[in-house]
């Protein structure tokens, strides 16, 4: 085990996988000399050269499409998007090309492509640079979706993503890059997709959150404990495939559910979780599940406004109390 930051964990896995497999390469904006604006490729060009750590023009659609084409031709590209918000500039290349290519060609294509980058609040980046976009890539089939909430998960999920023969959207969170965590040193440390992690066991209420909202859910759980409410906190870790079983099992035990995410609440993935839990554990539910997410307005620049848009720890606590009729 080594204690390292989320950013370093990502960088190290990229380097190790590039050493292991010469077909792995990275392209993105400012990833050579600058090492990516969050340092996830820092100094890698020195070891691997600028063929494999490759600066691109500011052309996200071409960059991602080139990733699809290179993957079809036997490479294993990692495309770094500076902000995952820029998936919107290249949405067709992701949703219509990367995600559908295998299926529409009757299963003959293989697209080992990772599209990774950060998203979310916390740095005053305002409306077009602070969104959480994982839901839409969960909605359209054909692409896997990972959302690591700590450095170990970042390492284990990213290695799985790079070794996967399918396209993967890898959502990092800007506010987590500096956070430290124990990461296994095993060069084959992989976390399988589709396995949620129970971050805290509890018997009274199930709280599901991902990315930044894992730690916030845990904070809420600590608050709740003081009130005598014992919360179970679950991090799904991947959105596609999604481990609904672990959550349903938990709810069968607790009888109550709160889902919380930073993505907009309306038609966010939390609604999917809530409705599947209702479907799978209706008889066990003591209360209607509560689903929290960002308000239906763009993310504002001002920090107090920004914080007012996304769910607070206090709101998670209140929601848990409410489903517990407290």
């Amino acid at each position, binding site marked *: 085990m080594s204690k390292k930051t989320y950013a370093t964990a990502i960088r190290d896995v990229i380097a190790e996988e590039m050493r292991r497999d010469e077909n792995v390469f990275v392209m993105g904006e400012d990833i050579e000399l600058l090492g990516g604006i969050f340092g996830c490729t820092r100094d890698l060009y020195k070891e691997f050269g600028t063929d494999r750590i490759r600066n691109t023009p500011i052309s996200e659609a071409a960059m991602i*499409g080139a990733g*699809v*084409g290179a993957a*079809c031709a036997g490479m294993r590209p990692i495309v770094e998007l500076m902000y995952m918000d820029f998936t919107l500039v290249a949405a067709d290349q992701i949703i*219509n090309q990367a995600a559908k290519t295998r299926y529409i060609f*009757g299963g003959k294509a*293989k697209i080992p492509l990772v599209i990774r980058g950060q998203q979310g609040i916390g740095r005053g980046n305002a409306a077009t640079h602070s969104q959480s976009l994982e839901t839409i890539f969960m909605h359209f089939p054909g692409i896997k979706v990972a959302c690591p909430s700590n450095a170990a998960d970042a390492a284990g999920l990213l290695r799985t993503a790079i070794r996967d023969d399918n396209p993967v959207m890898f959502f990092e969170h800007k506010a987590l890059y500096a956070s430290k965590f124990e990461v296994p040193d095993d060069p084959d440390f992989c976390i399988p997709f589709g396995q949620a992690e129970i971050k805290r066991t509890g018997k009274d209420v199930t709280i599901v959150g991902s990315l930044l909202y894992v730690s916030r859910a845990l904070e809420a759980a600590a608050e709740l404990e003081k009130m005598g409410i014992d919360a179970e906190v679950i991090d799904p870790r991947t959105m596609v495939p999604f481990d609904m079983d672990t959550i349903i099992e938990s709810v069968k035990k607790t009888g109550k559910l709160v889902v919380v995410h930073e993505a907009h609440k309306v038609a966010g993935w939390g609604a999917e979780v809530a409705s599947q839990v209702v479907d799978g554990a209706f008889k066990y539910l003591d209360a209607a599940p509560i689903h929290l997410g960002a308000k239906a307005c763009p993310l504002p620049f001002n920090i107090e406004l920004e914080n007012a848009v996304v769910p607070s720890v206090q709101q998670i606590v209140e929601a848990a109390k409410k489903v517990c009729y407290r």
Partner: protein
Amino acid sequence: MISKEQKLWIYEIMNKIRYFELKALRLFEENKLRGSVHLYAGEEAVAAAVCAQLTDDDYITSTHRGHGHCIAKGAQLDKAMAELMGKETGYCKGRSGSMHIADFTKGNLGANAIVGGGIPIATGAALAAKLQKNDKVAVSFFGDGASNEGTFHESLNLAAVWKLPIIFICENNGFGISVPVAQSTSVENISDRAVGYGIPGVTVDGNDVFAVYEAFETAVKRAKAGDGPTLIECKTYRTLGHWTGDPQTYRDKKDVEMWRDTKDPIQLFKKVLVDAGDFTAAELDAIEEAAKVEADAAAEFAINSPNPDPADVMDDVFYDA
């Protein structure tokens, strides 16, 4: 210089494409085939003269008007027709139909129903070739209309700065559906856009096999020498509607007739071959006849093929190791 063998190959491919298209049109009119079907008749010289110079290891990406490229890149007519009919025996097991048809085993990375959608993908295949240091090239086929999509611009710039082994083939058939090029496109020749990427741009008669062949030959040399991409504009004309069922009110019947009767690429090529004494008219007629028979057989095959089983519909979304 086109070898005699290649000439024969090209002539054969052009005929295969033509009779495949005519057969597909017939099937559509007979309600045996459905969906969005865009026929390539009249433009065969481009696909054939280009693909004559590619091996199965080279890559292409194609368009919504993809049958011609698919056949020229080595597809069998029967499996292609079965795909158009959505059959299990089709190249894509009935998942794709006309608009996304591909034979991946031949380096065809697919027809692409999103206008301009395939251009970055071909660029990526060329990047792979460069990184793998093999001798492969990639070709991106696209229309005049597609040259106004953002992906065209981003891809040409990317390929140019990275000096990728790719050739961009713009099939300028004068229209994007009903819209004449001059109404949608701000340059006289689309090849003029090459200037904006610092790469060579040439315009050739897309109905002249020799012109396309030579321009492409030069471009492939450049690509393989590591000097980067070329943009080749092939001026051509589709002699059928944009899609099967197109009323074609937007263009003059006389124009269509003129192109069909006096500039048909197959007839033009045939005349040159016969005049030069390469082949006799009878030899070429036999090839034409064989293509017709093959297209008919392809239709039979497709008609008699089973539909895919709806129970399998979720297969192949993901690759499972």
